[in-house]
């Protein structure tokens, strides 16, 4: 096997109404961010179950980011408020278990913030790349 430059795997959950549109806008404006980021479209950030996040780590993701509408702007009025609570507690728990807190993130990106989406992804990929491979929540069975 040839030695490649380390490229992390990043899963980005984006809400359909703001962040996914923000990602589209980043595309329309040709604002580049690393190809390691792959977006999963969900109706609202509140659809993201903590289990999905752990699942991503199990399957080999090195970072998971959840993007939703800014608090107060949720298409469903309150979804992202719940996301905020759930993720605050989950992330705090992961940190408590000694799992690098930089691997998970929540960002609010509106449909108009294409530039913010790209900048966020650039920054997140950089942070996760610096951390290196996810070892603490890996499932060895899923390694190639």
């Amino acid at each position: 096997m040839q030695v490649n430059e380390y490229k992390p795997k990043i899963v980005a959950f984006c809400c359909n109404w703001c962040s996914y549109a923000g990602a589209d806008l980043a595309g329309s404006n040709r604002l580049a961010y690393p190809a390691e980021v792959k977006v999963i479209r969900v109706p609202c950030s509140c659809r993201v179950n903590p289990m999905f996040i752990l699942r991503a780590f199990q399957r080999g993701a090195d970072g998971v980011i959840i993007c939703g509408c800014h608090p107060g702007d949720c298409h469903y009025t309150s979804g992202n408020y719940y996301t905020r609570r759930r993720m605050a507690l989950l992330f705090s728990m992961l940190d408590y278990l000694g799992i690098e807190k930089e691997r998970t993130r929540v960002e609010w990106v509106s449909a108009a913030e294409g530039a913010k989406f790209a900048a966020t992804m650039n920054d997140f990929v950089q942070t996760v790349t610096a951390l290196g491979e996810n070892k603490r929540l890996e499932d060895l069975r899923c390694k190639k």
Partner: protein
Amino acid sequence: MQRIGVFVCWCGSNIAGTVDVAKVAEALKSEPGVVLSTNYQYMCSQAGQEMIKEAVKEHKLTGLVICSCSPRMHEATFRKTAAAAGINPYMVEIANIREQCSWIHKDMEEGTEKAIVLGRTAIAKVNLNAPLTPGESPVTKRALVIGGGIAGIQTALDIADAGFYVDIVEKKPTIGGKMAQLDKTFPTLDCAACILTPKMVDVAQHERIRIFSYSEVESVKGFVGNFDVTIRKKARYVKEDVCTGCGLCTEKCPQKKVPNEFNLGMDNRRAIYIPFAQAVPKVATIDADYCTMLKTGKCGVCSKVCTAKAIDYTQKDEFIEEKYGAIVAATGFNPISMDKFDEFAYSQSKDVITSLEFERLMNAAGPTAGKLLRPSDGVHPHKIVFVQCVGSRCASCAEKGKEYCSKICCMYTAKHAMLTRDKYPDTDVTVFYIDVRTPGKQFDEFYRRAVEEYGVHYIKGMVGKVSPEGNKLIVQGSDLIANKQLKIEADLVVLAAAIEPDKSARPLATMLTASMDTNDFFTEAHPKLRPVESPTAGIFLSGACQGPKDIPETVSQAGAAAAKVIGLLAKDKLTGNPCVAHSDEMMCNGCSSCEKVCPYGAITYSDKEFRGPNRTTLIRRVASVNEAICQGCGCCTVACPSGAMDLKGFASKQIMAEVDAICK
């Protein structure tokens, strides 16, 4: 197992420029379930769509993956294509290889690799897709309008004219609202009564409109197309269908000292009253707070004089239950209380009045029969000062004023100034303003006429203090342009009080599960594109309950709300979004977590019988989702610990399959 067709779009060079589409199509061929994988220049074109349809037939496809632009762009297009080809439209998934791939990557290898992963992810999802059919619910072809002001009246008339039944619930004894209290209307100076009362009569006579006056909404249940509403008809102690509105009782009633709210307390009425001459319904009402008979059991004058025998002291509140397909909130506004603005001496001097009080003073049916006389001594004022923005644009004192601009004050103040100068040329009129805001047709022209033709003095500045001295009011204010502080001896001061939503709106919003902003104005579904709809399906907004509005704007919004209601009622059935939550009753333990996070109240519980082990039956409390109300956010799915709640189209397993495909 699905039979999936993968279609990779070039989008001209938009995708093909940085993604090797042929390679993507080739790579996706060996993914599970894929029986066909191909590419084409413009998948969304007529030819592209035809290609898909033929492929569906030829390969007996059950699912489609289109690798193309954002689903926000063409998901609907390809779903229609799928439907036309005879497969369920929800068996289509889009891999966004343009906005989220080709457009952001420059390197062909990198772009191609990512496009393959995105395609694979979509395939993984489609493998778990199930055909979805939108739910249907019937529509009750009757609308409820809450509030009988000009907004409610116009909405009701428009809906009724389109052939649907409408009920108006008005909490006061008559419809008409604030407009009935106005004298003239800007910018044309028509008499408000002349244009409003014919509409009130139209409403009263309309065969498809019912008016529940002196009534309030008690409870609202159900959902779009199927609301169950209870209306409380308050006891007015007069039989509505018997009273002829002759008014004799209102002249004979011995209780004469009741402040007349229609004239804002500037004169008195009797305990039994008809608010004003053109009231609809023109029926007397007994004010239970003041009626001697109701309070002490001794009097009965009205009953004696009533030839129609309409008086009924034993009347009780009545509850009416009705079904509606749509509900329009038209609860209107009120001027805010001036009590807290000590600097303007409103509570110290009778000659400091609000603009609405001024309307009544100018009105021929008002307390002064249309003569402009000072409330304190009945003398004609020669020097009037108008103060604008009292309580509006007031950021520092939430308990006193409002942060927003009340929008209508600039124009009515110009109207008042102009009318005063027109009727009483001997009267000197000064207006203190911060800004004069006149963005409306003929509005600025109107304001300029007040200045140029009628000689109203507009002073850029704000009044700091009003102090009564003798029979004068000393108005101290700044003239910012002259850089002077003015002290004006005025006979009358008129305050343009900020307006706020009616107090009944907040509890109503709770009943309707309609959202409100911090100022208690109803929130619109979209500030630009859906301005007359509430985010809660089936709830519409008309008039100032949504935000400050003048009459022309209110009437046009009322018409727009009516159009939306008509659009809804014209349907026999409502088709929902099929991507809604679904509760697996076998798994649900009835804990109510999901119900608590549902923003729409779409989840209800019921006790159901289940088969237990060994031929026993168990009764369990389980959740069910009303598909007509659910909007598909999925919040409940995470609140549910057992996973009984899932979201169709975005099921946990589907999302996990996507995660797996990405991380592979």
